[in-house]
């Protein structure tokens, strides 16, 4: 095991752009700005995700390569990292792997069990051997990770849940289940597309991690799978839903990276998923790189003020999964992604301002919030003076400054 921040490994090791820019981040719920690149944006803003650091298995690191045409292919990765059973899979078809495992159990059960319990084994091998494990009645000999995975496969396939006793305390089970499901998704991603049932299990693992464990560190894996399946024309709707349900505005970066893809299908999907962002368009003559640049500017200006709405493609043709809290942007206060409420303290003066602000029309609200944010970023001293004026004076100054720009 290695101590890693998984975010730097987010997207196949291919950073979106090398240009540096100012990015706001919420540390201890206070606004600050520092220079960073695209990867670090995700890392920095993950302060809000409360999960910037995690323990990553070797397979997590490799996950950065999943689906990436410019990185090592998965077979060679599997040869060096996966377990012995995975190596057998690279040269044998599925049925043959099952036969080999059956023979091994008959001839050398200890060796067979040690192989299936190998730490480095990929989930794909366990899934392929699922029916053999049932037939051979060897569940009791599996390690905790495999027992959890087998129980989850069973529940997904049968559609009903049963109480299971896998011999550990509830607290340990919670930890072990998280780690086991994470292994299912992260190492299983190598074999995505194995068959429809396997993909369904992968989707369910992603759903459990995001919805039950609030695990945002797997979002890069999920994003990769979405785009990989889209290229292949495979079902990816549930993964898209899971991705947004993570309520992680910073994860939008993972989608926007695909504006720079050489594949038209990637750009098209990135557009569909991000078109709720103003001025993200597919106008003729606008390159993917330009759209990506526009996205960078938008996310830089709004990331701290975005909240999740819960809208999805299952509900709407034009879903807006994230909206900007104009009130928060106006006061330059961080919002809760979950509720859209400002999470920093607000004094009496600011309450009064907000009340007046809420009575403005949308155009004036938008203009004031943008001006306020820009001023806060450029000149905090001046902003502190400006925010104390009446709303009418603030508008007059903002309009005058706007004309000068």
């Amino acid at each position, binding site marked *: 095991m290695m101590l890693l921040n998984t975010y730097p490994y987010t997207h196949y090791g291919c950073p979106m752009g090398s240009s540096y820019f100012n990015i706001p981040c919420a540390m201890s719920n206070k606004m600050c700005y520092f220079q960073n690149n695209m990867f670090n944006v995700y890392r920095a803003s993950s302060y809000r995700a409360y999960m910037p650091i995690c323990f990553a298995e070797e397979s997590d690191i490799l996950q950065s390569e999943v689906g990436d045409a410019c990185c090592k292919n998965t077979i060679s990765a599997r040869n060096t990292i996966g377990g012995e059973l995975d190596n057998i899979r690279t040269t044998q078809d599925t049925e043959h792997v099952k036969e080999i495992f059956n023979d091994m159990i008959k001839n050398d059960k200890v060796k067979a069990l040690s192989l299936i319990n190998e730490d480095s084994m990929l989930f794909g091998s366990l899934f392929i051997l699922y029916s053999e494990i049932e037939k051979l009645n060897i569940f009791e000999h599996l390690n905790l990770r495999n027992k959890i995975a087998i129980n989850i496969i069973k529940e997904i396939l049968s559609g009903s849940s049963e109480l299971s006793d896998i011999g550990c305390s509830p607290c340990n089970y919670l930890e072990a289940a998280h780690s086991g499901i994470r292994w299912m998704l992260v190492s299983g991603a190598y074999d995505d597309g194995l068959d429809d049932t396997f993909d369904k299990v992968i989707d369910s693992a992603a759903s459990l991690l995001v919805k039950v464990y609030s695990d945002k560190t797997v979002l890069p894996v999920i994003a990769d799978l979405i785009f990989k399946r889209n290229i292949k024309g495979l079902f990816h709707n549930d993964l898209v839903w899971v991705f947004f349900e993570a309520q992680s505005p910073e994860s939008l970066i993972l989608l926007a990276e695909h504006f720079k893809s050489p594949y038209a299908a990637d750009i098209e999907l990135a557009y569909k998923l991000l078109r709720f962002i103003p001025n993200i368009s597919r106008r003729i003559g606008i390159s993917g790189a330009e759209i990506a640049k526009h996205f960078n500017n938008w996310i830089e200006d709004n990331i701290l003020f975005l909240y999740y709405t819960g809208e999805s493609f299952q*509900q709407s*043709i034009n879903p807006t999964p994230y909206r900007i809290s104009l009130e928060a942007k106006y006061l330059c206060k961080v919002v809760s992604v979950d509720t859209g409420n400002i999470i920093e303290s607000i004094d009496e003066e600011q309450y009064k301002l907000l009340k007046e602000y809420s009575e403005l029309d949308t155009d004036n609200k938008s203009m004031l919030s943008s001006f306020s944010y820009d001023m806060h970023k450029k000149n905090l001293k001046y902003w502190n003076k400006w925010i104390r004026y009446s709303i009418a004076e603030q508008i007059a100054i903002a309009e005058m400054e706007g004309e000068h720009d």
Partner: protein
Amino acid sequence: MIKILGNIISLNSIAEKVPANSIELVVASRMISNNNTFYYSNINELLFEIDLRSRIIYASRELNKNKLVFSTFRESRCNPMFWKRTEEGGFLLKNDVMPSAAINDIYNNTYMYRTECATAIIIVFYRAIVKKLSEYRFNKMFSNIYLMNWKQLDSDLGVRTHSNVLASIPGDCMYFKNPEVDPLKMEWQGENAIDLGDGTYYGHGIGITTADRIIDALNSKRKAGATKSAYLLDTATRLGFRHLAELHYLERY
């Protein structure tokens, strides 16, 4: 409120043009009492929308009566004579078939189909349009039908999801969201449902029932320990009625 060229329209003026005690009259009355204003350039456009909304309601009831089976996209099925089932579980119109015949087949051979709730609503929309437009116009307009969810739709349908809808109009597709759905039952993340104008909704997989019962059904598919109830969103997904009316009258005159 309804306005034609800036003039407010009364229910009486519409009542003369639609059958008495009809669903059309209910639609008109709900539009008039709505907080939002519906604008038209002539009476025909308005009557077109009222009629098409009533056909959406009829198509919903018909599909429910025909017992279209609910399934996830992964397990969806269709009649291969008319449709190609894609790997992501959608139904793509075959090249050599009439679009209108393919849509009608879902109603004639319903037992051959199974799908998710969003697809069912799109089927309902298409069926209503087939019944409203001539087959010639329909087949000309919708030669590339793909039935899946809202993500991939023919732009000629003009479908849009409207926000801040305080009161729906019969024929609107509403959405019941289930924020704490069981992560292993993602198909219960929410329910698309057509407002039928009599206090009930048609939601594929749940049937025709009240909003409260739809919420109960969704709540029964929540994760263990869930505390947030399913709820009706204040959005409405609607066909592009004015756009379709323009095309309809373009053909006739």
